[in-house]
């Protein structure tokens, strides 16, 4: 069984509650038990993947040098040849976890699409979701997703939301969004709770029923990016099916506020965290438990090292002066001979073994190792940050920690100055008609070796 238990809700400052009864914090710690044996302490994070890999992190580095507990995998990364050719993943005799050589220490969340993702020019239809694969825009039949979920055995699966391409959809479109999302969720739940018998695995009949139930993936239902009023029908449908749901997922910060009381006990995943640690803290405050931290990879690709921590340290507020940066651009020439680690006291592989001068050299020389080392460190910073957040709630200093963080650090992440690794298809922000993504790797003088991937 997949279960979630709230362990502790953050204590609100007494003075604040007496004057403003509504201003209670929703920050909480919890424990998510997944049916395949994972125990996840929340708040916590998932690492986004691209084509099944945490960017720049080979599976051996994942296991040895990161503390990542869960990954966010998108089916759209695996099915470019469909429907003309059956995607290899569908003929693979084992699970998605095994296909991507995911270490056994991490749980796998499957989504139809990446998060954040590229808006497709073509609208969804009743039976199809528009997706972007490495070879272009395609339709993903909902029934294919549903049967893939059974076959690929993720630990968590996200329901699919029908999200309009426009920011403020009209009444008819909203109705369609609600109806389709209900229908698609029902199809997913129907298949998952039928033990996957619809997928054609007919020889499962003899399996002990208890056993089958035990290993079901946790279904997280999407909350639509709409005001509460406009998705009332959908939300009440979720309430009716609360027994079958193991969590909720949303992409906009506001969506967390539309969650009805009856669903409050479910873990909540913000799948689109691009704003950095301040955004995370705001969402923890509003009761979010899990975060897909897209900003980490963005920083790594830009050659930026994170260095922030969540602590109970006393912070003096001097009116915004002397705020610390959340991160540093490692392209800066001032690091050329700097033999100190990316972050003093950090126990990650990168900081224990390498210095700023080497990382700066690898960036400058366009050596892929630069991004490997930065990614290892950046993931470790985020891991420690979430550890701090959990401790603060358990030990009763959440609010102090949060306001201290607010005072201590600037809000904005630095903007990268150097060239990143080769752009990948999903990073292509516009639709068609543009020039090449990447400059040619070869130059006339040294045409051999300086071509990063």
């Amino acid at each position, binding site marked *: 069984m997949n279960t979630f238990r709230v362990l502790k809700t953050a204590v609100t400052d007494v003075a604040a509650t007496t004057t403003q009864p509504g201003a209670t914090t929703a920050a909480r710690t919890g424990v998510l038990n997944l049916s395949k044996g994972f125990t996840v302490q929340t708040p916590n994070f998932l690492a986004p993947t691209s084509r099944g*890999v945490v960017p720049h992190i080979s*599976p051996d580095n994942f296991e040895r040098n990161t503390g990542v507990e869960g990954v966010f995998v998108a089916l759209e990364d695996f099915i470019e040849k469909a429907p003309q050719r059956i995607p290899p993943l569908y003929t*693979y005799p084992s699970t998605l976890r095994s296909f991507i050589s995911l270490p056994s220490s991490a749980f796998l969340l499957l989504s139809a699409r990446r998060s954040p993702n590229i808006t497709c020019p073509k609208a969804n239809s009743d039976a199809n979701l528009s997706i972007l694969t490495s070879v272009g825009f395609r339709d993903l039949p909902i029934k294919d997703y549903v049967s893939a979920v059974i076959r690929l055995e993720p630990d968590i699966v996200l329901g699919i939301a029908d999200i309009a391409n426009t920011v403020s959809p009209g009444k008819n479109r909203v109705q369609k969004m609600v109806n389709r999302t209900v229908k698609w969720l029902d199809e997913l739940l129907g298949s998952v709770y039928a033990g996957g018998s619809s997928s054609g695995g007919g020889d499962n009949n003899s399996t002990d029923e208890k056993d089958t139930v035990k290993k079901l993936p946790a279904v997280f239902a999407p909350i639509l990016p709409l005001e509460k009023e406009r998705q009332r029908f959908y939300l009440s449908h979720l309430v009716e099916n609360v027994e079958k749901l193991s969590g909720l997922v949303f992409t906009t910060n506001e969506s967390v506020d539309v969650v009805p009381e009856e669903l409050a006990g479910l873990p909540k995943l913000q799948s689109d965290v691009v704003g950095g640690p301040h955004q995370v803290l705001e969402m923890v405050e509003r009761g979010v438990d899990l975060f897909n931290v897209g900003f980490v990879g963005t920083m790594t690709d830009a050659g930026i090292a994170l260095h922030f921590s969540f602590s109970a340290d006393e912070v003096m507020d001097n009116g915004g002066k002397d705020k610390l940066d959340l991160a540093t651009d490692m392209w800066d020439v001032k690091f050329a001979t700097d033999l100190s680690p990316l972050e003093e006291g950090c126990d990650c592989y990168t900081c224990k*073994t390498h210095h700023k*001068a080497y990382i700066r050299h690898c960036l400058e020389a366009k050596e892929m190792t630069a991004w490997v080392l930065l990614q290892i460190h950046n993931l470790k910073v985020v891991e420690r940050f979430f550890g701090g957040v959990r401790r603060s709630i358990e030990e009763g200093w959440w609010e102090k920690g949060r306001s201290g963080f607010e005072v201590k650090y600037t809000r904005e992440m630095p903007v990268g100055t150097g060239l990143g690794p080769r752009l990948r298809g999903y990073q292509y922000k516009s639709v068609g008609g543009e020039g090449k993504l990447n400059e040619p790797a070869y130059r006339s*003088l040294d045409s051999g070796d300086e071509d990063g991937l």
Partner: protein
Amino acid sequence: MAQQKAALSFDLIAKCSVSRARASTMTLPHGPVELPMFMPVATQASLKGLTPEQLESLGCRLCLNNTYHLGLKPGQATLDAVGGAHRLQSWNHNILTDSGGFQMVSLLKLAKITEEGVRFLSPHDGSPMLLTPEHSMSLQNSIGSDIMMQLDDVIATTSPDKERIVEAMHRSVRWLDRCIEAHKYPEKQNLFCIIQGGLDLELRRECVKEMVKRDTPGIAIGGLSGGEEKAKYCAVVRTCTEMLPDMKPRYVMGVGYPEDLVVSVALGADMFDCVWPTRTARFGNAVTSRGTLNLRHASYAADFSPVDEDCDCPCCRSKENGGLGVTKAYIHHLTGKETAGAHILTMHNVYYLLDLMRNARQAIIADAYPSFVKEFFGKIYKYDTAEYPIWAVDALKTVGIDLTEA
């Protein structure tokens, strides 16, 4: 000639009773290495996205850095400030550097060689620059490599200009003398000479005589990665090893195809380096015991077997046996799209070549090198002797190994 200082010790462990293959242990300033060996090339102090920890986990104890590249980035001043290349890349094992000359001649179309050195235009700003033997030594002293190479006068072995080849050979000898003179730390860095002479065996012999007199701690055979006929390549290696002292390591520069390695070991060579196995990984090419496979090919999209079933590298080893259990299909899925795909395949390719030489060494120690060679070729060509490359069959015959006999 004066006895040269050496910062290495060389122990000959075993010799093949049939061919000229040798097993030895060479102890360098950063620890012992076992020969024969393949040395991966970390051009700019980084091996194609692998961390030094990963490279070490593959069993590598000696890798290359390129002097020309490190001279440009991070530059000599930075190298001095950081304290050398070991410190720069946190690599506590051995490093070998080339002289920088070959890189210039091959990468910079406008390089021109005079008695003074190699003239070229700076890739930074186009200003004229000069790499002399003294400057090469100074750079390699700043890098702090365990093995440094003399600046030699490199020209393609395929050059038709006989006179130029003769000149280059003699100049290389003169430049070695200047290198020895300019080398600041002979007690902690080993300078290897490089035998030149094109494909002319008489010229090679003459060069060996001159170079051996200079008594460097190790000896390289140079100028052979330029696309010459394989039979001629083998003749040069054989001619040189015949005359070389037993008690010094022999390094054939720029050679890295598995078949070349196996044959060259039989001809008496000990050390090899090549960018090919690591560079080619980025394009999805897997070096395996059954030949090179291009995993980008559609036929591998749904091939769920390991890259090489006989390989025990972390990628190919199954999950059950503590490996990653990576399949050809997954590398196909990642190649050219995610850097980690290149990292995984680079690990495999480097491991494959390191392991090939480790196994060769074991075979030599067991005095079973001829059967090792036969099995190696048999696997690649499915024991169809008609498919075996003629140059390999012929070259091996000259040292007593007959591939065609059962």
